[in-house]
Structure formats: C-alpha cells, structure tokens
C-alpha cells in the first residue's frame, strides 16, 4: 500500500483507488458466482443451463447484467418514494462496508482496524435495515412479510454468528481479522478448526468444540445471507419474491449484487476465522502476498460452492423451524462450546 502511495503521491487518489478495488472484485466475483450457480443448479437437476452465449454460455451473466441495466425503474405509486429509492443502496452499503475489514492478503486489507470481527457483525445488520426498508416502502403485503421475516431471521442468526466469532476471538486473542489470520499461519494444522497453533494436549481438547463452532458458524452464515434452506424473506412459492417483489431494473440489480456479495463476505468470515484466511495449507510452500489472495478467494469459493450445493438439495424451513434451529439448537450448543473453550484455555 505504501508503494502505491509513493507512486501516486496523493492520499485522496490512493484512498479512492483502494476503496474501489473491492467493488471491482465484487462485480467480477458476482459474475463468476452467478455463472457457477446456474451451472451447478442445472447439472444437479440433470440439465445443462445456458449454452448459447459464448462457450457453454460463459457470457450469459454479462448479458443478464446488461439486461438489468436497461430495464425500466418502476416505482409503485403508493410506495414510500424516499425509502423505496434508498433501500437498495443501504443494503448494498452494508455489504460493501464489510469488505473493508476482510484480509485478502497479508498486505492487503481495506482498513486494519482492531475491531474487525465486531465491525463485520455490525455491518451485517445494516443489510437487515435495507431489506426491512424495502419491504415496508413497497407498500405490498408480500414485500412486508418478506422484510419482517428477514428482520426476524437475521437478528436471530446474528447471535450464533457473534457467539461463534467470540470463540475464535477467545482462542486468538484479537478482534483484528488480520491478526486472527496471522495467528493461524503455517500449515493446515494451525487452522482454528483444528484447534489452532497451541500445545498438542490443549489442541486435541479444543478440536471437537472448534469443529462444532465452525459448523454452526457456517449454518448461521447461510441463514444470514437468506439462502435456501433459510430463504424465507424471498420464498418464491409463498411471497412472490419477498422484499424485492416491487423492484425492477437497476434497484433490483443492487439487491441482487448485495446478496451475492454477502455470500462471499460470510464465506470469507468463516474462512478467515476458522480456515486460516490467506495462509497456505502447506505452511511456507506457496505462501506469500499474491498466493494469499489466491488461497483466500479459493477457500471462500469452496464455501460458496457448498452453499450452492446445499441450496439445490434442501427444501425451505418453516418459520417456527427456523427459530427453533437458531434459539434451541445453535445458540445453546455455542454456549456449551464457549464454556468448554474458556475452561480449556484457562487450564
């Protein structure tokens, strides 16, 4: 970063450039994820998905994006105009802000603040406001249902997420994601899923609890991005399109972008907290700032793939089942884990 700073010798330009970098990444990443999702979905159902636009339809996401850009931006007459207009931007801001604290590589992190993990959890709730706002402003019963469901769901699942983050923080002793990742550097054995780089006795005792925590964080993160089996805010078969029923064109595209960008964020959180972030699984081999980006994104993509796989396997949960999973299963289990991890770390 200092290198670029000296190169351009202008603080403002550098800040703008560096903050635009994740945006470019998001757009490229969303194109890839869209394509992957459609292809995986099709092949799971023994279909082939799009084949016409380019080789095996690789240009289709770009075509889709251009189509969305050209569409008319319809605002319902009875809608709350200001909130309706603002909602997609707030949702996207919540998503984008989270990218500031993601450690893409040992030298690149948007903002190296000490409260990284906390900031991520907080930024996640900004998306809820955007979605609830969209649901309310649309003045449509389905949208409102979607928005309210989304609020209930995301607030419920913030708790398991935060508790799981706490366990990672307890072991590493830092809220800074860069520090958390550095703590796990040096091979697959040092990752927090496997107990982190601690004495082997402690590590062995920690392992079952970290594995459970890791798993719960993963489940909660799927719920936080509103994807099947937790896609109640959208629930096509019940709520038309949920909170984004009334949206079209560019504003719909913003929600779409936000959803897929969020997908990467939660995967990145899981990866940087429990799977060593940018650190190479082979220790010193293939590690370095550039390899770091590679490992970070490929690990996150693995999780995105698993999420897609789950999406095309499981049916949607009922509302009460959703609450049951969060409050009666995930949260109590995490309390047990927190207690056990604390005990192990003390002795």
């Amino acid at each position, binding site marked *: 970063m200092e290198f670029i700073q000296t190169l351009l010798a202008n603080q403002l330009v550098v800040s703008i450039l560096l903050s635009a970098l994740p945006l470019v990444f998001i757009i490229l990443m969303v194109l890839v994820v869209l394509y992957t999702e459609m292809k*995986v979905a*099709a*092949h*799971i*159902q*023994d*279909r*082939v998905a799009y*084949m016409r636009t380019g080789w095996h339809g690789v240009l289709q996401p770009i075509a889709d994006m251009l189509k969305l850009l050209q569409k008319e931006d319809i605002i319902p007459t009875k809608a709350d105009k200001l909130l309706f207009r603002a909602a997609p931007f707030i949702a996207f801001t919540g998503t984008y802000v989270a990218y500031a604290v993601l450690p893409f590589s040992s030298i690149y992190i948007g903002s190296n603040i000490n409260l990284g993990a906390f900031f991520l959890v907080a930024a996640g709730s900004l998306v809820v406001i955007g979605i609830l706002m969209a649901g309310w402003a649309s003045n449509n019963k389905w949208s409102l249902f979607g928005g309210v469901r989304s609020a209930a769901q995301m607030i419920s699942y913030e708790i398991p997420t935060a508790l799981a983050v706490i366990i990672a923080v307890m072991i590493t002793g830092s809220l800074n994601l860069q520090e958390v990742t550095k703590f796990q550097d040096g091979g697959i054995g040092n990752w927090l899923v496997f107990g982190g780089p601690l004495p082997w006795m402690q590590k062995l005792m920690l392992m079952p609890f970290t594995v459970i925590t890791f798993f719960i964080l993963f489940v909660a993160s799927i719920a936080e991005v509103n994807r099947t089996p937790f896609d109640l805010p959208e629930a096509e078969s019940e709520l038309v399109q949920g909170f984004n029923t009334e949206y079209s064109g560019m504003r719909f595209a913003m929600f779409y972008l936000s959803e897929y960008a969020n997908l990467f964020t939660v995967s990145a959180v899981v990866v940087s907290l429990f799977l060593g972030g940018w650190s190479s699984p082979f220790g010193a081999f293939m590690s370095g700032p550039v390899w770091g980006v590679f490992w970070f994104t490929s690990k996150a993509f693995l999780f995105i793939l698993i999420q897609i*796989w*789950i999406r*095309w*396997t*499981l049916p949607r949960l009922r509302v009460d089942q959703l609450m049951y999973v969060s409050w*009666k*299963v995930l949260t109590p289990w995490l309390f047990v884990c927190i207690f056990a991890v604390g005990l192990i770390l003390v002795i």
Partner: protein
Amino acid sequence: MSSIGTYFYNIFHSLYTVVVGMRITIKHLFTRSATVQYPTVKMKIPERARNRLFVNIDDCIGCDQCAMACPVDCITIETIKSTPDMDLGMTSKNTKKRLYLPRFDIDIAKCCYCGLCVWPCPTECIVMTDVYEFAEYDRKDLIYSFSNMTEEEIAAAKVRLEQYNQEQAAKKAAAVPAKEPAPPAANPLPPSVPDIGKA
C-alpha cells in the same frame, strides 16, 4: 424416548438426512444431463409419427373421403367433372382419374394430427410426414394448397363441362319425345306384418 432424547435424536437425524440428500445431489452433478440441444441436435422421430400432412396431388382422385373423415373439417376439396374426351391419366394404383381438383386445401392450424384422413384414401395419396417444424408468423400461411391447377386451367375445365352438359341436355331433349312414358308399376302392398305384441 424422553424429550431430551428426542432433542438429540432430531439434531442427528436432521444432519444425517441432509448428508443423504447432499450425496444424491452430488451424484447427479456428475451424471450426464438429459438435455437435448434441440435446434442443433434433434431427437429421432418414431417411424410412424404423425406430423405434417402431405398430399400427392397427382394420385388424388378427388373422392372426398379424407374430408369426410376429418373430425375438425380442416380439409376442403372442390372438384370439377371431366368430360369423356379428356384423359386425366391414371394414379399409381391404376385407378382412372375422373375429376379435376381446382382446390385441395388443408388448414394445418386446425389439424389435430389424428391420422383419420390417411386410412380411407383409396390411392394412399394423403400421408403424414415426419416434418414438425412449420411455424409461421401469419395464420394464413398455415393453409396449404395442394392443387396444381392454374386459374386458366380451372376456367377452361369449367367451360368444357358447361358445354358438355349443354350438349347432353340437348341430346336428352331431342330423345325425350321418342320415349314412351313408362306404365305405372304395380305397387304391391307390403305384406301384413303380424302383430309382434300378441305373439
């Protein structure tokens, strides 16, 4: 089972069923997809598939049986009798053709592809082909005309028939006075039917 037992059972059961489902989906991810890339790759059509109708007009004798059989009345046939001095040729089944066909229209948009018109045809000139891609932008284009007669030919045939009919009428008129009116035939009464009710 105690309620705490049910709680743990539910958790492990749900995890187990998720794994089962995910195993099935990943298996399908790597099986060959069933899609046929239609316009570029076409499926083989069964040998006796019923699709677009075709009429070999050279074999048609204008018997109108196909139009009669049609349940949706999509076949329209008009005929003009030929005069004895004209030879319309033979069909491939060695049937003499006696009728001109100024019009043989099939409205394929109405056709229900039942194939009922194919069976009565004595010369096997109306058949169902395996062509199934014949969408049109205008419904009028779906009316297929199989007649190969030009306007002049139709007019000429009509004129000839008219002349012939007039000649025949003239002959008849000339022959009528010579003919004796036929004696009224003895109209036998129908045999009395025995009353069925009493029998």
